[in-house]
């Protein structure tokens, strides 16, 4: 092995670089090259993939920035991310706090609850399409036989599609949130709660002053990673509504996918991708600064 003296007493070894090289090269080839490609394409008027576009300067950016549909899709994405995150957190918290008291239930929940998260989105879509379907779904049939509604609700494809999609996605993701929260809760020392009880603190005060601060070490995992992953979700929307009806569920990912593979505007969609990345980057930096656990 090639060993060179490095710093005082610390030997320089090439080995760690060789070990990490395959992964880093892989990521450079599959992420950084496409990123360069998308930046270059964003200045061209390429239409179909494989055709060559000409340089059009900033025209694509101008076109995207002035496109009401692009900003509308950001609005939808915002509703999507905020709606999903809030519901997931509430549901995840409820589950985590509910099962925490009982060791056996907690173990079962921790190991099995995650299942909705690991099944393919397309199957999640099929399951809920099958339950929610307007003409033969079991939900409508049940609500009608209970006389709660007089005619079937069009839950997927109707006006409230966004809400339905959020519900379905929360079903898909809240187990993940709950498992991470359970792990975070487990790191909070029991003595804190005991001494708070001695001091006469109630449930709510314990939650606000012990539980929430104690979870600060997972707010990064849930806050930054969770939000960006949620923003990125495409398949459940595409397979169930394709962004419709009337664009009510066209989030940014749908806007981009459609622009490239349905409207065949590669150049313009590349500009939209670059702009979206920049906005998300700013968001990520702010979030990382805000949620970073204090260095000890």
């Amino acid at each position, binding site marked *: 092995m090639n060993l060179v003296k490095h710093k005082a007493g610390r030997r320089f070894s090439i080995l760690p670089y060789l070990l*990490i090289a395959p992964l880093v090269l*892989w990521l450079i080839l599959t992420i950084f090259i496409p990123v360069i490609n998308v930046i270059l394409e964003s200045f061209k008027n390429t239409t179909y993939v494989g055709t060559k576009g000409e340089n059009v300067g900033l025209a694509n950016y101008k076109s995207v920035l002035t496109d009401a549909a692009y900003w509308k899709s950001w609005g939808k994405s915002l509703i999507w991310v905020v709606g999903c995150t809030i519901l997931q957190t509430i549901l995840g918290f409820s589950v985590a706090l509910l099962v925490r008291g009982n060791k056996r239930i907690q173990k079962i929940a921790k190991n099995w609850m995650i299942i909705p998260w690991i099944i393919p989105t397309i199957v999640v879509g099929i399951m809920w399409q099958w339950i929610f379907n307007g003409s033969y779904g079991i939900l409508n049939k049940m609500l009608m036989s209970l006389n709660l509604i007089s005619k079937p609700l069009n839950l997927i494809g109707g006006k409230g599609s966004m809400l339905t999609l959020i519900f379905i996605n929360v079903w898909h993701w809240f187990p993940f949130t709950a498992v991470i929260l359970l792990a975070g809760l487990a790191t909070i020392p029991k003595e804190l709660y005991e001494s708070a009880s001695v001091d006469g603190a109630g449930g709510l005060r314990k939650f606000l002053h012990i539980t929430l601060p104690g979870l600060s070490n997972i707010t990064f995992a849930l806050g930054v990673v969770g939000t960006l992953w949620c923003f990125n979700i495409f398949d459940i929307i595409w397979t169930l509504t394709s962004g419709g009806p009337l664009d009510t569920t066209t989030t940014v990912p749908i806007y981009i*996918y459609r622009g490239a593979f349905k409207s065949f505007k590669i150049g313009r969609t590349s500009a939209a991708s670059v702009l979206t990345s920049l906005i998300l980057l700013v968001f990520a930096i702010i979030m990382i600064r805000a949620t970073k656990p204090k260095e000890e």
Partner: protein
Amino acid sequence: MKKLLAKALKIIICLLLTILIIFPFYWILISSFKSGDTILVPDLWPVKWTLIHYKELIGITNYLSALRASIIVAVGTMIICLIIVLLASYALYRFDFKGRSLFERIILITYIFPSILLVVPVYNVMVKVKLIDSPLALIIMNVTFAAPFCVWLMRGFFKAIPISLDESAAIDGAGKMAVLYKIIIPILKPGIATIVIYSFISSWTEYTFASILVSSEVNKTLPVALHAIMGQYTVRWGHTTAGAVLTILPILVAFTFIGKYFISGLTEGAVKE
């Protein structure tokens, strides 16, 4: 009395949540065994059981070819992931070298990078390097999205192995690579299970890139094929529910055996970050 009421409420909420999680699974499973003329009737239990949908799914749809494609892509993703993740996390969590935190950061950025922003350029690049419509294109991208998260998951597993073990092996004359093979990998079995299951599942469930990077029937993976079966004008619910059941079956079986390692890896990684 108040305590009893609170407990009853707790049990009711637990039950409701359990039903919420389990019912969709139950409902497609049960529906897939109903005969064609009763499948649209929402009976909670089939009037008569049939395997016709499974027979047709295997016989007349492209389910088997999609299953084959999915297995090829998932196994390929899994093997590559396992190798490069083990090597990289050994470097990251066992060596002190210049640029370590920079590499860690590059890997971190990749796993929070929204993949949807890559669909257009990845498609462009794959066309240029003539990998479009090849299972290899899917394997390549699945590794990209699974590997960084796997490295993150490995952190806790490496921390749990005392460095003194490495050191005593080194004193006995073992080289750094021998330490990896002889000491770390045998203890790291739960970690390896985590990589295997995560990379397999993330490849098995991937839809977005699979829907654009491959186009011929033989290369279509299960999620894409299922979407096609479901997306026809009149949805064949028999095929769709049977296909959904067979698509999640391998995942559930795998998860039953190594799921607990996966959960512990997931939670270790999340808490320590």
